[in-house]
């Protein structure tokens, strides 16, 4: 376990370094001068020169990449071109809203998906199972922006039930939560279906295992078998998928934040791309990618702890 953990941590570190190198080098891989690309055709030569010096763009590429990585580790992601604010500060301001959004969506998806998956696995091929199966597959294929736009049309524009713009006022819980409803549903739909299907599949697999047959032979009631014996093992793959889900949700909040005009990490990156504010794009993407890596790491570790069998095998990746 300790050896695996150590190896996993080292791998994570290597991946994070790779990501920083990748983002640091990205601007130089692309043909053309990044400064003129960033400032547009009407920039004065003096301004371009100033920005060049600021970015250290005339240094060799490896120096710049190393600079970016070393500064990033120390929490310095550079300076925003437009507002002259440190990028780290902008990201820290935007992060709580995005994390709340992703975490709430994940919670909603788990709260609906897990029971639905269990219920359809307990009665496989029943009408309820078939109906939830069709609905789940349909939900999985709905992209978050389609869900967001359709919710916007139905509940906000037509019915006028929920507010559509902004994140609401944090000091007023009702206002804040009502602003959260539509974006969270838009994010969660895919994962409700996906977690439902996943739980169903792993529950079915466990229910066919030998030890469940033995339990049945002992005359233990089916309900007790399903909820006491089977569920425990069936839920383990779901733990791993929750980490993946969290990472993915952070990635797609950008759509929901744009549609519902919420300030957040996705919106920050989106605006930065639009205004070619390269340091903000780079910093924002770095933070998102690192969060995805950490979410996967956390899921892996939780998975290890939850399932002793994997500990023995060492949990190697293919």
């Amino acid at each position, binding site marked *: 376990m300790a050896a695996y953990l150590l190896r996993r941590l080292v*791998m994570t570190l*290597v*991946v994070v370094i*790779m*990501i920083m190198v*990748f*983002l640091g080098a*990205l*601007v130089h891989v*692309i043909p053309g001068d*990044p400064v003129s*690309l960033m400032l547009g055709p009407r920039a004065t030569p003096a301004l371009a020169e100033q920005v060049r010096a600021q970015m250290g763009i005339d240094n060799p590429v490896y120096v710049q990449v190393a600079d970016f990585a070393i500064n990033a580790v120390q929490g310095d992601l550079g300076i925003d071109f437009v507002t002259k604010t440190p990028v780290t500060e902008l990201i820290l301001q935007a992060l709580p809203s995005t994390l709340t959004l992703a975490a709430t969506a994940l919670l909603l998806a788990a709260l609906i998906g897990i029971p639905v998956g269990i219920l359809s696995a307990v009665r496989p091929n029943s009408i309820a199972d078939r109906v939830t199966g069709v609905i*789940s*597959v*349909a939900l*999985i*294929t*709905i*992209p*978050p*922006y*389609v869900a967001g*736009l*359709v919710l*916007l*049309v139905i509940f906000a*524009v*037509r019915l006028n039930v929920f507010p559509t713009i902004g994140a609401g006022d944090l000091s007023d819980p009702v206002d804040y939560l009502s602003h959260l409803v539509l974006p969270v549903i838009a994010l969660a739909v*895919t994962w409700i*279906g*996906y977690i439902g*299907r*996943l739980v169903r*599949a792993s529950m079915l697999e466990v229910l066919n295992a030998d030890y469940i047959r033995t339990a049945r032979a002992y005359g233990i009631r089916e309900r007790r078998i399903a909820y006491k014996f089977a569920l425990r093992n069936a839920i383990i793959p779901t733990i791993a998928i929750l980490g993946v889900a969290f*990472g*993915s949700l*952070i*990635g*797609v909040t*950008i*759509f929901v934040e*744009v*549609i519902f005009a919420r300030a957040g990490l996705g919106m920050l*990156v*989106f605006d*930065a*791309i*639009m205004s*070619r504010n*390269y340091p903000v*794009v*780079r910093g924002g*993407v770095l933070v*998102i*990618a*690192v969060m*995805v*890596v950490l979410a*996967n790491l956390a899921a892996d570790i939780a998975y290890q702890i939850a399932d002793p069998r994997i500990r023995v095998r060492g949990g190697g990746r*293919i």
Partner: protein
Amino acid sequence: MASVGEVAAEHRMPPSSGGALRGVRTTFAQLVRRPAGAIGLAIVVALLLLAVVPGLFAPYEPDVQSLADRLQGPSVEHLLGTDRLGRDILSRLIYGVGIALVVALPAVFAALTIGLLIGVTAAWLGGLLDSVLVIVLDALQAFPAVILALALLALLGPSLRNVIIVIAIAFIPGYARVARALVFSLKANQWVEAERALGASSLRIVVSHILPNILPSLFILMAMDIPSAIVIEAGLSFLGLGVQPPTPSWGVILADGFQSVMQSPWAIVFASIVLMISTLGFTMLGETIRDIVDPRLAGMTRRRV
């Protein structure tokens, strides 16, 4: 779910080329017999038809504006209504089929080709190269596809060609990983050793024995990635970072609808429906083919974004 390695281990013998056509025929026969497969196939064929000859079906040109008729609901003249510039939504959606496929098909095909090269090279040569490639793939996969695409588009600039490039890059690690795992498990087979003893070169073994064994799995993966690529393209175009207006990408149509959402919901409603039906069609077709060809992978629907 069976791991890819286990699946590959089933194919122990080098395949004979004679059965390929018969295999395709029986697969097709099974495909149309399953409801999901038949519906999926019908939708995909219809989409291909619309993509090839949109002018035959679209009542108007996609970018003819008629400001007097803007933001109308469905009517006899405009079956699905008009957008904020008075363009016929139905016509734009029909021309959008071609845009969706022109991006998605080359993107997944390029990802397959490059991913295959990387995966096979890594697995066949092994050693340090393999370790390095695995780390690079890990790092690349740490980015959610949309974020990776956004970061690259921020630098490349938005255009149809660049959307193809970034989607391909985002999909490469998936193919490389699967190809690598499959080659690893094939490499362990005795017939590889036998081939070598008979004097076959690495290149010959890979091209004539390894590739035919792993390509079916990769093609299935590609079939299932097409709807993902369509959804990502529409998403990027919706954000204004993909295909640029007035080109009638479904994402552009959604963005137009979003701008006038308070006045008229129809562009959003119909573009969403078309997008959903199309991706469902490709998904049903891809998953049915997978269930027939590779039953051990059956049961899971892949996520899109």
